[in-house]
């Protein structure tokens, strides 16, 4: 069975400092993994996805994520937070359908 655990429901960082949003998954096979972002009162936008190619995946707006099979993790990082990064972030594991994590709310402090 598939499941996704986002380890932090809220993360606060200062502008210009690194961002780390953690995601662990469980899956019977080799899954596809995604990160989506949802800005307030908006829909979901794809940040990046992993589909068994390179383990380090680069996405939009300077985000990247590393697939670590041994740790069953797919953490999202960004070297330097920007005010516009404040949003809700969802990790998704997919085999036969999308399974969403519970989300991490990112606050960026000026």
């Amino acid at each position: 069975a598939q499941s996704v655990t986002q380890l932090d429901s809220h993360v606060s960082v200062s502008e210009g400092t690194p961002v780390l949003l953690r995601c662990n998954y469980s899956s019977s096979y080799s899954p596809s993994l995604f990160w989506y972002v949802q800005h307030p009162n908006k829909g979901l936008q794809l940040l990046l996805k992993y589909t068994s190619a390179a383990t380090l995946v680069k996405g939009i707006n300077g985000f990247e994520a590393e697939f670590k099979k041994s740790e069953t993790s797919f953490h999202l990082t960004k070297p330097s937070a920007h005010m516009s990064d404040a949003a809700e972030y969802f990790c998704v594991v997919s085999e036969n359908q999308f399974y969403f994590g519970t989300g991490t709310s990112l606050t960026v402090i000026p």
Partner: protein
Amino acid sequence: DTAVSQTPKYLVTQMGNDKSIKCEQNLGHDTMYWYKQDSKKFLKIMFSYNNKELIINETVPNRFSPKSPDKAHLNLHINSLELGDSAVYFCASNPSDLARETQYFGPGTRLLVL
């Protein structure tokens, strides 16, 4: 040039009413989905349609009925609305029935039942 669009964006209605939410995608995708996002922002799939056929029907109440007149449209009709139906409903699509592919989401319909 909106890829996945939903109407209405906001919907406020009384308990017991019947309402519909419409979704259209202009991406030429074969599969469309409805998701429900609750007040804690948890997202759960409700329905999936591939080429106008239902391929996922999660355990949602019978009051919810998806209708797909063609593969570019997937509407959601809700009968006898209840307070617990208040949520944000998202439509999504992807190119085929492979869930490994990226899903493209609409802007959401914020439903409030009073």
